[in-house]
């Protein structure tokens, strides 16, 4: 590879390009906005791969924006974790963008419509915000990026204008705002105590003390509200269920992961030494509650999209088991940072799988006009590819091989058993069984023999989009060595040694 490619401004472009697209889409108008958006989205995987190559060749990528080095300026930083999230984001957004044409591309002969225009700049802004989060190395900048994310995500929830979606969006907005204001408060205290918000500098300067403790607690609480960890999950299911499927896919797959990503940065990079056993155990306990409560609620839903949304709540719970399980390997283990890696892989495979599921739900709505689980007889014949994709995505949620979810769960479970904390293994296994329960409860009517009435036909190429995502989530289980090596680049030492 030429040096020019390896040294290009890929990190900056990953933030700037989506925003440029968003700005351009507005004057361009509703007839062309979707074309522009798809063009920009298509560049995403390419840019993310170029950044990955840059990381692979030269180690952690750091960019001092404007040439002003931290602490005066703001830095972007891309380590393995960032790049993996960026890649996932680019792929999921590409797929979502393609799928969203069904609902938001202008029909021939029609003028500009509200949703047909606004969906695309909102989606691009969402993408830019996600990239800004995954690349951000400054805690205040991350606050702005989070707000950008929220303000792009909330309108997407109610862009179809349904009353229940408006209520859900408002509730989502209030939760998110409370979360970010708590986060900001923590950032203020950290600045007061250390004179910088650059993550790398903070990590080096960090002094324990009341201000730092309080900052950590406030920021964690704020990020938990945004990540919808039990018991702060109330906003998530209605919002993710009421949004149009393409938006739900992005919200469930990626948006909640952004605040989780910052939480990881905070705990593992900024203040690993301060994160005591108590805090980590508390997060693990809440994660356990989320797994169990979310799965049980998903089992009780009558509507497909609500069931999938509650499943998101449950799956997010697994991510929090990383905190108590980090480190703690034994000599019998031939790897390091098992739990941390498992958690990150879980986030990625869940992103792919959940996006696939919501896109399938979108196809179901399109074909049947409803998503009542009981009335989905004959779905397997009407859209076999989509149902297959749903099943494959389900593998990852259940944590069954072959899938990324399996490898993730395997790493987490092994970490639990190897460190003698076997009690964390119980909710993981139980959650897998419950997930099997709700996934097959959804598949059951789809495979039953009754002919569905009035299914509108859905062409195979629309069904192929969720299938591609689901296959990727499976492929992640067959070739996780690459992500594993990638994740090792620039990984925080706390991921290997544990917190506290």
């Amino acid at each position: 590879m030429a040096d020019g490619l390896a040294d290009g401004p890929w990190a900056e472009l990953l933030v700037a390009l989506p925003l440029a697209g968003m700005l351009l889409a507005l004057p361009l108008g509703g007839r062309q906005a979707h074309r522009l958006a798809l063009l920009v989205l298509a560049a995403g995987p390419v840019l993310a791969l170029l950044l990955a190559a840059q990381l692979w060749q030269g180690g952690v990528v750091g960019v001092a924006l404007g040439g002003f080095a931290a602490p005066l300026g703001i830095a972007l930083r891309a380590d393995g974790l960032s790049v993996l999230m960026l890649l996932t984001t680019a792929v999921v957004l590409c797929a979502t963008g393609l799928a969203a044409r069904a609902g938001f591309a202008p029909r021939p002969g029609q003028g500009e419509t509200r949703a047909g225009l606004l969906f695309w700049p909102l989606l691009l802004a969402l993408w830019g915000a996600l990239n800004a989060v995954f690349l951000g190395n400054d805690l205040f900048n991350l606050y702005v990026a989070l707000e950008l994310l929220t303000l792009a995500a909330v309108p997407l929830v109610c862009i179809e204008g349904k009353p229940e979606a408006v209520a859900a969006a408002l509730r989502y907005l209030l939760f998110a705002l409370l979360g970010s204001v708590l986060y900001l408060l923590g950032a203020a205290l950290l600045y007061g105590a250390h004179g910088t918000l650059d993550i790398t500098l903070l990590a080096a300067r960090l002094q324990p003390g009341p201000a730092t403790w309080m900052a950590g607690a406030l920021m964690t609480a704020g990020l938990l509200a945004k990540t919808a960890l039990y018991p702060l999950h109330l906003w998530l299911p209605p919002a993710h269920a009421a949004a149009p499927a393409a938006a739900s896919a992005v919200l469930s797959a990626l948006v909640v992961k952004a605040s989780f990503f910052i939480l990881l940065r905070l705990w593992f990079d900024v203040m690993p030494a301060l994160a005591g056993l108590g805090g980590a155990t508390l997060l693990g306990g809440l994660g356990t509650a989320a797994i169990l409560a979310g799965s049980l609620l998903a089992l009780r839903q009558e509507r497909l999209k609500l069931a999938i949304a509650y499943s998101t709540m449950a799956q997010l719970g697994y991510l929090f088991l990383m905190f108590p399980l980090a480190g703690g390997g034994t000599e019998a283990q031939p790897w390091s940072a098992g739990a941390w890696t498992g958690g990150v892989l879980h986030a990625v495979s869940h992103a792919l799988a959940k996006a696939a599921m919501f896109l399938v739900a979108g196809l179901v709505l399109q074909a049947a006009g409803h998503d009542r689980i009981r009335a989905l007889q004959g779905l397997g014949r009407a859209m076999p590819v989509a149902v297959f994709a749903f099943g494959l995505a389900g593998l990852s949620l259940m944590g069954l091989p072959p899938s990324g979810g399996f490898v993730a769960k395997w790493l987490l479970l092994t970490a639990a058993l190897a460190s003698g904390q076997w009690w964390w293994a119980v909710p993981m296994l139980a959650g897998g069984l419950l997930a099997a329960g709700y996934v097959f409860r959804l598949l059951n009517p789809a495979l039953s023999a009754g002919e569905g009435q009035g299914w509108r036909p859905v062409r195979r190429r629309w069904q192929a989009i969720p299938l591609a995502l689901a296959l990727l989530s499976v492929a992640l289980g067959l070739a996780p060595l690459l992500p594993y090596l990638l994740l090792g680049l620039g990984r925080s030492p706390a991921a290997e040694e544990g917190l506290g």
Partner: protein
Amino acid sequence: MTSAATLYGLAGAALVGIGLYGLAVQAHVLRKILAFNLIGSGVFLVFGAVAGRGGGAGGGDPVPQAMVITGIVVALSATALAVALALRLFRETGRVTLPPDPPAGARDG
């Protein structure tokens, strides 16, 4: 200067508390939004205290001041969106409060 800055920092802490109380207690959406703005400005005051303690030539550390300006604009953006959502909710359903939490086993809706 420093002691005054700390005083405003403490005021900011109190404002956050007052805002949290309002957010929890008030049912009307607009009043929730108002309470959120109180919390926000309390946080900005804490930032201001941090900046003010910094002394500096003109008036304190300019970096947190710039952050507060950014924060104020962001808070306004969020408020505007929240108000618009509240108005839309009112127009659609006649409600000025958020519907109660969705029941666990939400039925067809």
